């Protein structure tokens, strides 16, 4: 009971943090828009969203692991691995596109179960367990596919899946305009996962486990089952992110890539108010945190700040977010 009160208390404090994060989103957007005319262009908004979709999906999944007191480092390389295998099934084995997409998600679920098993049943530290599956997924895609894989191009009959995230509408002169319909699945995912986190037994028990695992166990919570469910959710969203990645960002998936994306996703979740020590977090906060990182990635080059500044500023933002988390934990303690 005390745990539930604690998390409720923290979530009220969190509202303030989310307002701050939302304000940062607004300020960043304003700064980039003022200093770069190109940033205000519609095509820039669409490109920003293209790189936001998959990033957001993997971060939603990781949020559940972080709230449960764990972590999932396999989501970045995993996302690429699952997309490679799904694409391989479509282009090399000739399965229909929808089946390749299901394979992509299924691969994510399999690794989600594996991560959950390693952490909750075998009691391996989440950091180590998912570091191992990160290495496995980093190599597995290459072993299975033997090299880079191209998902079907938009112009091919099998390229319909790209319309899930971006519709190309031609005007009378034949010029095509992209419509970023990917915001719909993102919003649906945020709403559904927010409800699951806050209004269902699964979400509440994941929060309870993250707040105090032993107390949750003594209260009768099936810790193994619900801790594992956090990793299955993360795996599922890594699979979905794989589809978003090939739909909106690139057709060509290269094995071994994706390393480092998990840190961005975890960073986004932390900026959005999810605690590194577990028990606290929100899906909407993660959405805002990822939006900040995506704004920085897209906006800094537009105002002439090169790669070094992008790394420095992103690092500074993360230090700030983690420091807030540390302060919150001190107060909680």
């Amino acid at each position, binding site marked *: 009971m005390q745990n539930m009160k604690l998390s409720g208390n923290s979530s009220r404090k969190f509202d303030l943090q989310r307002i701050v994060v939302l304000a940062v989103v607004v300020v960043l957007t304003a700064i980039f828009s003022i200093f770069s005319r190109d940033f205000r262009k519609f095509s820039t908004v669409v490109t920003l969203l293209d790189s936001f979709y998959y990033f957001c999906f993997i971060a939603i999944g990781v949020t559940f692991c972080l709230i449960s007191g764990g972590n999932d480092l396999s989501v970045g390389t995993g996302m690429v691995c699952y997309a490679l295998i799904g694409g391989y099934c479509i282009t090399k084995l000739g399965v229909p596109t929808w089946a390749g997409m299901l394979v992509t998600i299924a691969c994510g679920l399999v690794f989600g179960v594996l991560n959950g098993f390693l952490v909750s049943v075998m009691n391996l530290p989440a950091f180590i367990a998912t570091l191992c599956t990160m290495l496995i997924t980093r190599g597995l895609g*290459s072993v299975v596919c033997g090299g880079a894989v191209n998902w079907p191009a938009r112009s091919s009959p099998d390229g319909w899946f790209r319309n899930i995230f971006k519709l190309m509408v031609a005007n009378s002169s034949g010029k095509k305009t992209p419509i970023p319909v990917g915001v719909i699945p993102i919003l649906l995912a945020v709403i559904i996962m927010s409800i699951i986190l806050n209004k269902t037994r699964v979400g509440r028990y994941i929060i309870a486990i993250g707040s105090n695992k032993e107390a949750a166990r003594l209260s009768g919570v099936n810790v193994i089952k619900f801790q594992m469910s956090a990793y299955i959710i993360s795996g599922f969203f890594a699979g979905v992110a794989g589809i978003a990645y090939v739909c909106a*960002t690139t057709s060509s998936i290269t094995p071994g890539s994706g390393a480092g994306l998990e840190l961005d996703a975890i960073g986004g979740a932390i900026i959005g108010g999810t605690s590194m020590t577990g028990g606290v977090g929100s899906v909407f906060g993660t959405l805002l945190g990822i939006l900040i990182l995506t704004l920085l990635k897209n906006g800094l080059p537009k105002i002439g700040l090169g790669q070094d500044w992008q790394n420095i500023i992103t690092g500074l933002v993360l230090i700030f977010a983690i420091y807030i988390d540390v302060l919150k934990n001190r107060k909680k303690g």
Partner: protein
Amino acid sequence: MKKALAIVLALMLILSVSVAAFAEDLHFEIVSKGFQHQYWQAVLKGSEEKAAELGVTINFVGPANESAYDEQLSQLNSAIAAKPAAIGLAALSTETCLDAIATAQAAGIPIIGFDSGVPGAPEGAIWANAATNNYNAGALAAEKMYEALSARIAAAEGAVRIGVSAQDNVSDSVVSRGLGFIDKFAELCAADGFTVKLEGDAAYVNGANVTSDDNGKVIIETLVPAQVTSELSLIDCNTLMSKDDTIAIYGSNQHSAEAIISANENLQVLGTGENDILGAGFDSGAVIKAAVADGTLFGAITQAPVAMGAALVQLCYDAATGVEVSDVDTGCQWYTAENMDDPEIAQNLYD
């Protein structure tokens, strides 16, 4: 006479059997830059075919990505430990590999460079290179682009911008292709009386053999992503292609060329029309080939990866069997929608 002939035949037989037996024992370790791009699969294919032809064995490895210097170093150390007859090496970073190269030298193992080779390696460490002259390849792209753009530059009232999307500012091959492009484009501009201003990544601005003029008529801007990821290069290309004064963009490898094509999906600005942005790529792959074929990209440079793989194994074989070796330029070609089906070019275009 018959006896002499029989002796000669017997000697030839013994010689051929012993050469074959020797050749079968030859094993080469090849350390590439990884398998991220189909390009490397084509190099592997050429290597395997030549190895089969020569009757030797090869172990072709590469790191997970082209930023994994330590992983490649570990693979190079494993290759040396395997005591091969020769090593093929496409170094991601020569500095990282220096100690390992010295170890191979001390062990008497010949090292053959390929792709970008091992630039800056100690004198005598690299016996020969099987490589594209990347600087010249970049220059070839600049020549073709300038040919198509010179009238537009002359007619423009203000400054015009040429974008360069580079995967990184570390890899010698990528940097050479970028600098080759920048230097040649600036040289052609100067010949026609146009001044040039360089902008963007410092490695390219400072590395180019160009005197930058702040009031340049032609601005050449090079962007490099913070990490080698598709979405960051896509953002760079979007940044370059969104600018009102941009008239052309060049991507110096498969990764960057694909990012240009992805960025165009939202912008719809590439083409060969009067107001379009002229796009040029490097290497092939299904996405780039399709873009060249349908006119989205004006053209691209292709190397000869299969020939490069074959030349590499031949050089390893020659070095291991005591034949004198020297550098082999495996060449490059400019391909467009018009000539990409020519057999001479089509053989170097891979999916």
